[in-house]
C-alpha cells in the first residue's frame, strides 16, 4: 500500500496470492490460519478492500510458505508523485511511525535460506500497525496535493538507507542527514541500527525549503511523528551525521546504480529432458462422478470462501464482482468504467517446463480478466524462487521469465512493477519456481461486466477450445500419483491472443450471460463451478474420456448464452460448440454421445463438498 499511496494514488483494492504446504500438519494449518488472519487484520483495519487472490497447496511450500500481496490504486494524473530528492537546499523530512530496532537485516532475511541460525534471528520481524498506516495513508494523500512537496518515498527494505539513496540517485543529487533528529522509540540506537531499521509505516519526504510547517501541520492533524532530518546537496554523496560527527559519507551511486552485476551459471536440469520424453497418461477412470467429487475437494480447487470471508471485500462500496469469480471487478465512482483484477500462477507447470509454464501463467491471468469483460491493461509480477546460486534454479528463473516476457509481448500487457524473493529454501530443498502474475484490466462500460456463475435456466452452454492429451502438472495427475511429471499442456500464444480478443468482443456485444475460463480440473470442474451455490443445474453432452473432461489445456472457455442470442453468439464465435443447457432442477448431468448419463449429482451436494473441503481440513486432527 505504501508504494501505491506514496505515488499519490488512493489504494482501492488489495489481492494476495498464498502458497502453503498441504493442510495435513498442525504447523501448516496454524500458519495458514494465522497468515489469513494477519492479512485480514491489516487490510480490514486500513479500510482497503481485499477483493481477490488465490491459494495453492503443495508439498514444496511445506517449510517455506509464500505470501505475495498486490495493491491497486487510483490516481488523478496531475497528482503523480515521484520519489526524487531534487533541489539543493531542500529539506529532507521524516514522517510516520518512529524508528525501532525491528526488521534490521529484514531485506537480507527475506532472501535467505531458512536454517537454525536464521530462526534465532527472527526477532527482527516487524509488528505492523494498521492504524498508523491508515493515518499515514490519509496524511500522504493530503501531502501530495501540496505544491511544496518535491518527492516522497516509502521506507521499505533497508529502510532509511535505500529510501534516501534511491531518492538522491533519481535526482542526481546528494543528501545530508543528522541521525540524532530521527524519531526513535527505543533508546541508545546506533546510526547503523537507524539506517537499517525496517520499522513499518514510515515515509521519507523532500520538501521545498521554508515550507516545512505545511507538512508539519498535516502530520500533526493525523497525529504522526514528523521531523526535518536533513537536506538535499549537490555533492552526490549520502552523508550521515551523528552526535556531531560524520559517521558515513559514501557516493550515492555506490549504493544504487553501481552495484555489481552478478553473473551466475545456468544449467538445464536433467529432469527437464526426462519429463519431456515421457508423456504421463492418467489411470483409467471408472467412476467419473467420484473423480469429479474428488477433484472438487482438492484444496487447490475447493472454494476459498473460508479465506475471503475474513477479508472485508466491500468497504469503499465499489466492489461489483466480489471474490469467487474469475476476477474481481470494481467500479470507478463517477464514471461508466470499472477495473478488473486477478492474481494467478501455476507453479507445477513452471516446475516441469518453465518457459511454457511462464507463458501459461500470464495467459491465465489475462483470460480471467477477459472473462470478466475487461481488456488487460498491465501486470505486476512476484518472482519467488530458490537460490539463484544453484545453476538449475537460475535456469528456472531464466526460462520462466523468458516465457512470461514472450506472453506479455504477444498479449500486449506491459509489466509495470513487481518484486523478487529468492533463496526460498528449507534445508536445501527449494520451492517450486513460483512467479505470480497480478493483472489489471479495464472494463469500458459497467454493462460489460460478466461473471462466471450461470444466470438462468434455459441458457445454452458453449465451450471454446479443445482438451489435450498432456496431463503433466495437472490436478488429476497429482490426485492419482501424488507427484508431477511429464509433458505439460502447451500454449500457442497467437491462438491465446486471438481468442482473448474474440471473447472480449463477444462479451462487449452483449450476448454472453456468463463466462469462465478453464483451469485446474479442466472442463468438468469449470462446468460445475458455473452453477455452484446457485439453484441451477446443467445438462451437457460430452464424450466420456479424461482428455475432454479433465484436461487443463489452455486458451479455453465455457459460456452461457440466452437461447434468443444463440444465433448472434454463434456468428461471432463460430468455433464455440454448444454442449447443452442450464436447467432449473439443480442437477449437474453429463451425458455421453448415446444419451447415457455418467456424471449425475445434485448442485447442492457438489457445492457442499466444494465449500466444505478447506474448513474440514482445518478442523481435522493431525
Amino acid at each position: 500500500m505504501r508504494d501505491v499511496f506514496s505515488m499519490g494514488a488512493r489504494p482501492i483494492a488489495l489481492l494476495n496470492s498464498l502458497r502453503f504446504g498441504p493442510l495435513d500438519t498442525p504447523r501448516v494449518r496454524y500458519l495458514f490460519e494465522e497468515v489469513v488472519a494477519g492479512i485480514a487484520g491489516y487490510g480490514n483495519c486500513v479500510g482497503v478492500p481485499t477483493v481477490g487472490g488465490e491459494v495453492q497447496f503443495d508439498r514444496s511450500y511445506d517449510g517455506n510458505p509464500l505470501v505475495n500481496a498486490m495493491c491497486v490504486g487510483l490516481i488523478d494524473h496531475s497528482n503523480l508523485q515521484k520519489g526524487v530528492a531534487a533541489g539543493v537546499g531542500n529539506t529532507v523530512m521524516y514522517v510516520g511511525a518512529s524508528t525501532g530496532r525491528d526488521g534490521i537485516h529484514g531485506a537480507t532475511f527475506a532472501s535467505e535460506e531458512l536454517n537454525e541460525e536464521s530462526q534465532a534471528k527472527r526477532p527482527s520481524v516487524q509488528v505492523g500497525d494498521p492504524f498508523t498506516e491508515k493515518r499515514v495513508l490519509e496524511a500522504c494523500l493530503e501531502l501530495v496535493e501540496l505544491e511544496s512537496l518535491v518527492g516522497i518515498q516509502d521506507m521499505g527494505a533497508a529502510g532509511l538507507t535505500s529510501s534516501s539513496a534511491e531518492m538522491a540517485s533519481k535526482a542526481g543529487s546528494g543528501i545530508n542527514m543528522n541521525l540524532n533528529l530521527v524519531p526513535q522509540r527505543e533508546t541508545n540506537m546506533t546510526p547503523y541500527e537507524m539506517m537499517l531499521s525496517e520499522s513499518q509505516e514510515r515515509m521519507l519526504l523532500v520538501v521545498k525549503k521554508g515550507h516545512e510547517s505545511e507538512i508539519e501541520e498535516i502530520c500533526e492533524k493525523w497525529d504522526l511523528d514528523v521531523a526535518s532530518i536533513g537536506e538535499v546537496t549537490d555533492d552526490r554523496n549520502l552523508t550521515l551525521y551523528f552526535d556531531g560527527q560524520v559517521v558515513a559519507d559514501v557516493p550515492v551511486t555506490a549504493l544504487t546504480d553501481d552495484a555489481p552485476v552478478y553473473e551466475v551459471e545456468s544449467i538445464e536440469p536433467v529432469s527437464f529432458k526426462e519429463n519431456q520424453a515421457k508423456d504421463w497418461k492418467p489411470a483409467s477412470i471408472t467412476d467419473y462422478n467420484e473423480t469429479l467429487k474428488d477433484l472438487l475437494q482438492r484444496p487447490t480447487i475447493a472454494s476459498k470462501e473460508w479465506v475471503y470471508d475474513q477479508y472485508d471485500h466491500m468497504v469503499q462500496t465499489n466492489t461489483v464482482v466480489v471474490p469467487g469469480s474469475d476476477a474481481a471487478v470494481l467500479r470507478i465512482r463517477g464514471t461508466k468504467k470499472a477495473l478488473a483484477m486477478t492474481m494467478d500462477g501455476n507453479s507445477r507447470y513452471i516446475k516441469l517446463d518453465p518457459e511454457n509454464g511462464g507463458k501459461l501463467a500470464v495467459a491465465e491471468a489475462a483470460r480471467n480478466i477477459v472473462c470478466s469483460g475487461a481488456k488487460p491493461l498491465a501486470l505486476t509480477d512476484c518472482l519467488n524462487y530458490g537460490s539463484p546460486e544453484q545453476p538449475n534454479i537460475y535456469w528456472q528463473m531464466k526460462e520462466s521469465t523468458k516465457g512470461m516476457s514472450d506472453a506479455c509481448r504477444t498479449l500486449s500487457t506491459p509489466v509495470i512493477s513487481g518484486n523478487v524473493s529468492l533463496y526460498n529454501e528449507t534445508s536445501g530443498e527449494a520451492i517450486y519456481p513460483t512467479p505470480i502474475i497480478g493483472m489489471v484490466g479495464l472494463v469500458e462500460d459497467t454493462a460489460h461486466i460478466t461473471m462466471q456463475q450461470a444466470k438462468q435456466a434455459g441458457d445454452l452452454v458453449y465451450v471454446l477450445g479443445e482438451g489435450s492429451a498432456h496431463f503433466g502438472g495437472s490436478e488429476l495427475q497429482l490426485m492419482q500419483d501424488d507427484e508431477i511429471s511429464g509433458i505439460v499442456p502447451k500454449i500457442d500464444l497467437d491462438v491465446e491472443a486471438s481468442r482473448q480478443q474474440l471473447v472480449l468482443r463477444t462479451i462487449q456485444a452483449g450476448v454472453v450471460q456468463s463466462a469462465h475460463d478453464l483451469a485446474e480440473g479442466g472442463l468438468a470442474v469449470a462446468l460445475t463451478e458455473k452453477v455452484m451455490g446457485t439453484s441451477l443445474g446443467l445438462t451437457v453432452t460430452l464424450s466420456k474420456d479424461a482428455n475432454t473432461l479433465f484436461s487443463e489445456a489452455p486458451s479455453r472457455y465455457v459460456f452461457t448464452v440466452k437461447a434468443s442470442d444463440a444465433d448472434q453468439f454463434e456468428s461471432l464465435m463460430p468455433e464455440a460448440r454448444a454442449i447443452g443447457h442450464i436447467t432449473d432442477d439443480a442437477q449437474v448431468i453429463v451425458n455421453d454421445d448415446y444419451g447415457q448419463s455418467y456424471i449425475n449429482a445434485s448442485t447442492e451436494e457438489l457445492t457442499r463438498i466444494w465449500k466444505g473441503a478447506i474448513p474440514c481440513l482445518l478442523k481435522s486432527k493431525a
Partner: protein
Amino acid sequence: MKAAVIVFPGSNCDTDMFHAVKDFTAAEVVEFVPHTANSVADYDAIFIPGGFSYGDYLRTGAIARFAPVMKSVSKEAAKGKTIVGVCNGFQILQEAGLLPGAMKRNKDLKFICRTVGLKIENHNTRFTSEYAKGDVLQVPIAHGEGNFECDDEALQKLHDNNQIVFTYVNDVNGSKSQIAGIQNEEGNVLGMMPHPERAMEAWLGSEDGRQLFTSVYRHWREMNVVTN
C-alpha cells in the same frame, strides 16, 4: 434535514455512509464532522460510521468514546436527536453508554465479511418505518467483534421495551438472541452491526439498506411538519 457523518482516526466507512445519506435521502446538508469537533448541535441526524477507530486497540470503540465530539453526541442524544451507529459506530455507542451491552469477538474468532439475512423485529421505529415487520433483508456484515453480550436482566429489558430492531436470520457470530441491532429506550439512538450503507444498489448485491435512510429522513420530515 442536516446530517453529520462523524470521522474518527481509523474510521473507514465514512465515505460510504456519506454517499448513502447524500444520494438516497433528500437531506439538504450532509457533512463530515471530525472527532475533534466540539458540537454537533447543528445537525438533525448524526451517523457514526464503521471502521477501526483508534485501531480498535484495547477494545473496539473504547478509545473513540473519549473523543471530544462524543460529549456533544451524548448531549444531543439526551435531547432526542437521531443517532445511528453502524458497526464500529455501534461499538462506540455501547462504550459511551448510549446503548446497552458490549461486543465480544465472534464465536469462531474470525472476522466475517458476508451478506447475511437480517430480520426486522421492530418496524415501529424512526429507523425502520419504511420496512414491514418480519421483512428479511440482505445486508452485508463485516466485523470481528459483533458477538452481542449483556446480562439476562438487560436482555429482558431489551425484549420488554421492543428495543431489538434487527436480528440475524442465522446465528452468524454468537450474539445473544441473534441480536444485530438495537435502539435505546427512548427510541432515538440506533446501533447495528450490519452495514446498510453497503446495500444501496442492486449491482452491489443488495439495495435493502435504502429504507433505513429514507425512514430516518421521513421521521425528520414528519417531526418538522408538526413543529412548524
